[in-house]
């Protein structure tokens, strides 16, 4: 195992976080704070309790997940796409590093950045709503699992993208709608019966409900269903990444 290479990629990617502090940390904190102000404080005041929790508190796990998903995707997809774009990826491809080691370096750094941002968001949330964590270990597990899974998914997007448009299209067109329609701001029980059934096909519903269970012990979906759905998606991402890197698809001739 080339530990020095993993460390080099990891620290190189983390450097990007410190260089772009505003974009990486302040920007998601500000946008999430606005969600708390608008939905939690203003609209939340007019909404009765949901599943025994105030609306302001209810949306905390969903907004946390929204941030983690989008951050993990953008961190890792940009992380691998930028060297492709600048051409500097040659030095990674020419170095004595296995595909597995490359993935650990990029995905590890992306997941770390997302965890840092997620932790800051969680602290920020306590200024706007009453936050209670009934199952802290499950919460940490889900945080790490989500960051890793979506960082890996972002890595795949970065590898497969041939231009900036393709890099943006999946997060914007697919992931953001899934998150908003995944119950981050409402309980799916509030939906009409038909849309409730449609929601069960949205994987993000399982993530958000898993996290909501970790916070308040309430969920529309069984916690184990949520965890296994996440693990299943992680497995799909791992297999796809191994396949693409082994074939050298879109990175090697």
């Amino acid at each position: 195992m080339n530990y020095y290479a993993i460390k080099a990629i990891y620290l190189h990617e983390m450097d990007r976080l410190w260089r772009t502090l505003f974009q990486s940390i302040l920007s998601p904190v500000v946008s999430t704070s606005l969600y708390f102000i608008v939905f939690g404080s203003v609209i939340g005041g007019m909404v009765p309790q949901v599943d025994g929790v105030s609306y302001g508190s209810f949306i905390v796990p969903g907004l946390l997940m929204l941030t983690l998903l989008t951050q993990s995707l953008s961190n890792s997809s940009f992380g691998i796409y930028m060297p492709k774009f600048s051409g500097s990826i040659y030095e990674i491809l020419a170095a004595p590093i296995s595909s597995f080691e490359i993935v650990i370096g990029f995905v590890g750094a992306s997941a770390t950045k997302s965890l840092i941002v997620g932790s800051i968001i969680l602290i920020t949330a306590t200024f706007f709503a009453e936050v209670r964590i009934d199952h802290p270990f499950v919460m940490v597990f889900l945080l790490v699992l989500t960051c890793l899974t979506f960082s890996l998914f972002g890595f795949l997007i970065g590898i497969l993208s041939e231009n900036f448009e393709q890099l943006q299209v999946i997060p914007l067109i697919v992931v953001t709608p899934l998150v908003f329609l995944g119950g981050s701001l409402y309980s799916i029980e509030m939906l009409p019966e038909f849309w409730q059934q449609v929601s069960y096909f949205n994987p993000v519903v399982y993530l958000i409900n898993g996290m909501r269970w970790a916070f308040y012990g309430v969920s529309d979906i069984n916690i184990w269903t949520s965890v296994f759905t996440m693990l299943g998606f992680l497995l799909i991402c791992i297999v796809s990444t191994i396949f693409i890197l082994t074939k050298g698809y879109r990175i090697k001739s």
Partner: protein
Amino acid sequence: MLETLISIKNLSKTYNNSFEALKSVNLEINKGEIFALLGPNGAGKTTMISIICGLVRPTSGEVKVNGSDIVSEYKITRSQIGYVPQELTLEQFETVFQNVSYTRGLYGKSSNPKHIEKILKDLSLWDKKSMRLGQLSGGMKRRVLIAKALSHEPSVLFLDEPTAGVDVELRQDMWRIVEKLRQSGVTIILTTHYIEEAEAIADRVGVIDNGEMIVVDETSKLISRMGQKKLTIQLQEKVMQLPESLAKYNLELASDGFSLAYSYDKESKQTGITNLLQQVKDSGMKLSDLKTEQGTLEDIFVSLVHKEKK
């Protein structure tokens, strides 16, 4: 006896668009030598070194570096190789020192600021160590690429068109750097368009064209084979037919009848120029001008391909 460092056997590469970039190439590169790979654009030079460095997958054939296979033992072979690409492919926002140290890490070496300092000083980059890469000139960026390639102390260095598009001063500077590296025991393989470059620094030269290795020889031998020059004699009056006395010089009479072309070997002690000019004078022709020119790389390729076919 010379020890082989890189052994290439029947190496072929066909890209997805069916372009055959390499056609069963065989080559051996010796330890400690400077080997120049010459060829026109699209000849297969970059493909060949990209395969050895792990950037392109071979379609068939075998490449060994120091006895290790580049595919099955890629970690061993790549850790011995440094690669300087043709394009100035650098990230913009990192400092020189950070970026060179990063490359050392990628090659599985622990951090060694002293070694990085030495490389940067050798390449006259030490005073730029804290500058962002985006702030450097093209020449400095090329030096950074060399510094990165040397950061992990490789035993073999690949330079892909290291002097393409650089000014004369920097080109000569590059040649000095290459010679210094060779003296430190590094084997160097470089690709180039410029025959003068190969002549100046390479021990051996390989000429590749259309994916085939046409010739591999010691530089001095190749230069003497390629050393044809052309003397053009401009005449004041039109000549319809050459006199018999000039037949032995194999002169080419221009279609307008106002110039004669004479090819000669510049390495030869007796070029025949003096006698030719005397004969021209004796035959009553009056000169208006003289011009000599070195055969171009294109002429040399044509000549080599022609010889191969024969």
